[in-house]
């Protein structure tokens, strides 16, 4: 009688928090063993190498100010975040349904919300790791070339992590809606790379400051390297016959952008989790 010494499976069930940690731990393992992370690290190496090496090869003058020099590297950070959010969040939820691993995971005594949060935390961890590596190497190269560093790079990295969290949350929301991984990945990528930036570019034409747009807020990553921090200004360009067209140059405010990104995280995750909990495992 095999079950004579049966352990009380109910009593030893871990708490929701412990299960979140377990899901996150094994999801991190997935990322660490994936070709996607390797590909992204290779991309980081390429960007760092090109940004560092190309001016040397071309004999161009390099900036002597550490903040200016570092800005060249940081200019690539938002694209890395877009790619990272796409690769690690874009199909995080839908893949459980499409690849049928949900049939293994869902009949276990673990809440869908715990699975969702655990997966999100692992994605967040991997994006943060990716950014720390990138900024770390960039700071090292900056030190090599300028003999100094800047605390602004640290602020930029922290903000990049928050932007990464918001972009990943949006990816999770899209992943909770879509039925297929490809569609989810493509929409996440184009939403972050083209659709949202395009809207943020068009709104100022109507003199609307796009302070609420995710990608506009994300541009703090680069602007934070500028001292003093830029403020909104009206500019004009000549359009002929001595006439000028005036337009506004809008810049995201740091604290407001931080708050907006936090709202993106909360709303996207809340909606995504709601959809994930309601989603049925059908063939």
């Amino acid at each position, binding site marked *: 009688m*095999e079950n004579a010494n049966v352990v009380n499976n109910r009593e030893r*069930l*871990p708490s929701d928090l412990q299960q979140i940690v377990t899901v996150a731990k094994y999801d991190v*393992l997935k990322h660490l063993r994936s070709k996607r992370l390797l590909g992204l690290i290779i991309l980081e190496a390429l960007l760092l190498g090109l940004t560092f090496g190309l001016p040397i090869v071309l004999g161009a003058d390099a900036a002597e100010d550490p903040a200016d020099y570092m800005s060249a590297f940081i200019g690539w950070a938002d694209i890395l975040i877009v790619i990272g959010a796409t690769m690690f969040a874009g199909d995080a939820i839908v893949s459980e349904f499409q690849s*049928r691993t949900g049939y*293994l995971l*869902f*009949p*276990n*005594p673990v809440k869908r919300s715990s699975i969702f949060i655990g997966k999100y935390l692992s994605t967040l961890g991997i994006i943060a790791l990716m950014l720390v590596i990138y900024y770390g190497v960039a700071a090292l190269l900056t030190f090599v070339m300028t003999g100094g560093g800047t605390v602004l790079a640290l602020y930029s990295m922290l903000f990049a992590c928050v932007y990464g969290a918001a972009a990943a949350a949006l990816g999770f929301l899209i992943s909770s809606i879509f039925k297929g991984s490809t569609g989810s990945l493509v929409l996440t990528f184009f939403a972050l790379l083209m659709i949202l930036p395009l809207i943020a570019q068009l709104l100022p034409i109507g003199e609307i400051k796009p302070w609420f747009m995710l990608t506009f807020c994300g541009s703090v990553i680069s602007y934070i390297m500028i001292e003093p921090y830029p403020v909104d200004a009206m500019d004009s360009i000549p359009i002929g016959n001595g006439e000028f067209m005036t337009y506004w140059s809008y810049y995201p405010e740091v604290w407001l952008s931080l708050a907006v990104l936090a709202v993106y995280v909360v709303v996207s995750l809340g909606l995504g989790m709601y959809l994930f909990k309601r989603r049925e495992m059908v063939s």
Partner: protein
Amino acid sequence: MDAPIQVHGLTKVYGGGFRAVDALELNVPSRSFMGFLGPNGAGKTTSIKIITNMLTATSGEAFINGVSVMRDPKTALADVGAVVETPEFYPYLTPMETLHYLGALRGMSVGESTNRGRDLLDMVKLTEWKDQRVGKFSKGMKQRLAIAQALLTQPSVIILDEPTSGLDPRGMVEVRDILKQLRKMDVTVLMSSHLLNEVQEVCTDVSLINRGKLLRSGSVADLLDEVKARKIEVKTMRPLTPDMFDRLRSVPGVKGFVVTGDLSFAIDFEGEEDAQARLLIELQNLGLMVVSFKESGLALESLYMSLIMESR
């Protein structure tokens, strides 16, 4: 003792009004191995998915060990091992890592899941693969691993959804061997299948459903007793010739027969064991030189078909 799995008025209506499960009532007795039988589209998998919290019921309720799956799925599923459809595994994990992961979600330490995992992988004949990533495993290997993970915490309730579906003959035999081992354990098993011989071979109880409704439920032995018509396969040393046909038809209980080969035929027969014994004597008296005389495993099929036909 209350049935470990109880289903009351379970209904699932999909978009478009398709009623996959229709007020299903089901009780799986403690320590029984219940076959959940029905044709394709009968509602077996939908019912099992609701019981394992993968689908939401339109109405009704399912209880496992007295806990509502709808109200408290985490507690209800704590003592359940399940294999639903053919699950896919995380390709980046090895079988042992998979068991560690699922064990950790259920509160097992790495040491516990390693020890238990070794035994289970041995049982499902995957020991030599325990450190290989699951990505390249065959469907049969994945199905065996799925059964292993279902047994990981020694749950008192095991739910299996067509565990031999899609497997090659060798895979089916291997999984069926594991199912037979389950019969010896102190567990309650609900196993859906449309393979009648499989159910008759391994199950103690059976529930028949069609169009989402329960048609009949009971022990396999009791249900087989209900089947009056039996099919008896006979092999002989001498052929059954036309001049013997009338004499064979006149034997009490014989309802008809079909010649299946030069030296074999099948008899539709109604009667208990004593009547079967008399039939055998008559066949010998015909000079057929009977080599084998056995009731075919299709009795359940007769009941199944008649109930399915009645329900239409």
